[in-house]
């Protein structure tokens, strides 16, 4: 068994693709129309083009919005991405106008930070444990 795909619900797929590629630096993997305005839209890390895909999924179900908004209000991230250097990535993204709800914080062996993906989710950045 493998985890090949995970998802985040996004308000707007076009805006999400822009943020996840141009700002975060992921690469588009699949973009297939699936009816109406919706697309099967995935991105991958350029460091692992055959690695786990992130599905930027349209926010179809009304309960998804309630769930997501409740997490955001308490600052709870929905997904975590690994970077080599959290403070450096924080500075890079801040310069691009990204909003953080948690600045870099050392927590034992890892450093984390939490950012707003502008599509309705909070994302945690974490360093690899030293």
């Amino acid at each position: 068994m493998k985890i090949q795909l995970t998802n985040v619900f996004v308000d707007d797929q076009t805006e999400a693709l822009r943020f996840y590629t141009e700002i975060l630096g992921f690469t588009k993997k699949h973009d297939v129309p699936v009816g109406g305005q919706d697309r099967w839209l995935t991105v991958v890390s350029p460091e692992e083009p055959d690695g786990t895909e992130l599905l930027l999924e349209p926010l179809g179900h009304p309960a998804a919005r309630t769930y997501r908004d409740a997490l955001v209000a308490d600052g709870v991230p929905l997904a975590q991405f690994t970077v080599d250097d959290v403070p450096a990535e924080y500075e890079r993204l801040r310069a691009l106008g990204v909003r953080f709800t948690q600045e870099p914080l050392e927590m034992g062996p890892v450093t984390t930070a939490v950012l707003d993906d502008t599509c309705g989710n909070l994302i945690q950045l974490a360093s690899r444990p030293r």
Partner: protein
Amino acid sequence: MAEDLFKALADPTRRAILDELAARSGQTLFEICSRLAMGHRLSLSRQGVSQHLAVLEAAGLVDTRREGRYKFHTLNTAPLRQITERWPPPPAPSRPESTP
């Protein structure tokens, strides 16, 4: 009012929350929970931390502000003045004359 203050300060977890908010102002509930878990080995449920925050807020020691979709918590030490007004600390020792 004073009762709320003393009750709020009587609990070690709530004092730990105040310590963490003193370290960085403006934290989400998620960050407070993370700091308690990692820095103090206190693994409380989010609900538990929320209840502690409500007690601190009632005592005026924590303020919350909404910014868009998020809620941030900040430390407010103003109520602590009641303590020193009620039991004033001794005057600060006068500085010894500096030698020329």
